[in-house]
């Protein structure tokens, strides 16, 4: 997968993480988002049955954007771990938020709905997986 040029324009700096490093911690606060420049990450949720992988993201994928769009009001909904060495770009929060605020309230409602729906679905997936695993 290639990285969209438009994202690269928003990268303020790059960060490198070693295998299994926790890049985002579930339940923590933060409104910045990342784009994967090289490597792969696992999105995991903490459940009573341990960590469950809900998604694997690769080059060009964005993560942390849910907290960004809700302006850090919601806590990180999942943890993100490096799966092998990973290079990520940190997106310029202020510029993305400024762009976000230039759209209409209705469109913002739609995007927030998308965030909520994705969060709910991910929670539900984790519950289902833990039920089947148990």
């Amino acid at each position, binding site marked *: 997968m290639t990285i969209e040029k438009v994202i690269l324009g*928003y990268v303020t700096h790059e960060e490198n993480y070693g295998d299994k490093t926790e890049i985002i911690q579930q339940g923590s606060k933060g409104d910045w988002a990342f784009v994967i420049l090289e490597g792969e990450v696992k999105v995991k949720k903490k459940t009573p049955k341990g960590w469950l992988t809900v998604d694997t993201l690769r080059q060009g994928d964005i993560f942390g954007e849910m907290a960004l769009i809700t302006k850090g009001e919601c806590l990180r909904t999942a943890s993100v771990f490096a799966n092998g060495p990973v290079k990520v770009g940190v997106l310029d929060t202020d510029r993305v938020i400024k762009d976000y605020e*230039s759209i209409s309230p209705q469109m913002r409602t*739609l995007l927030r709905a998308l965030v909520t729906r994705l969060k709910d679905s991910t929670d539900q997936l984790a519950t289902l997986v833990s039920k089947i695993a148990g």
Partner: protein
Amino acid sequence: MEPNMVAQIQIKNALPPIARLHYKSGDLIIKQGDYGLSIYKVIKGKVRIFRESGGKEVSLATLGPGEVIGEMSFFNRSLEPRSASARALTDVELEAWHPARLAREYDQMPPIIKLIADKMLSRLIKTNTLIGKLGAKLEESRAQNRLGAEPKGSGRRFYRKQVDLDCTYRPLDAPPKVRYPGKIKDISLAGIGMEVNSISRSNTMHDLGELLYVSTVLPNNKEVDFIVKIVDIRKGRLPGRLFLGMAYVDVSEDSRKKLGFFMMP
């Protein structure tokens, strides 16, 4: 005022609602599989969002005032049918939004926002598809607990009737309009043996453990349908044919009765 300033202000102001809609408790608002672009904001009441997978309703969310419905088809530009159904849980009042104007705004919004929205959307679709599949799997293991041990390898315990019945089948998570032809070769109270084409079909469909929805008409003209799980795969007698040994996972009360009657010696 410059013309582009006017446009800016128009976009910033909330777009006017085009209609207020009222639904009674239990009414279906959106049907999964239909094509539609309208977006609704819940003003009053509660709405259940669910996915139909293999005839089962898998709940995805319950929405209340302030939340929106139908944003998925909007983001998809209706290239894909509605990915979930919506039903009124109480008496519901909705505000319908203007999809064309929002679509125009979507195209014009900053590319980074559009990109983030697109990425979230594809992840949501992926997650919902998985939920549908896993939900059906969970139901399957529950059904199996009810039925007791798997019948594989214990076929002789069951009276097996040789037949030659045309049937149609589809993978459980395929849309209902998908139909492949098959031939049921034997029926027992534990499951069926079915011969299918092995070529020109996706192989994943014929994997052990895969769930299929099968529908047929018995020789006594009774229509039956059930969900079965592939427990055995063998080569058919003819080239390009597969013989699938399958155990019932879910049989409706009605189909159960018809099968029982048919199986009487």
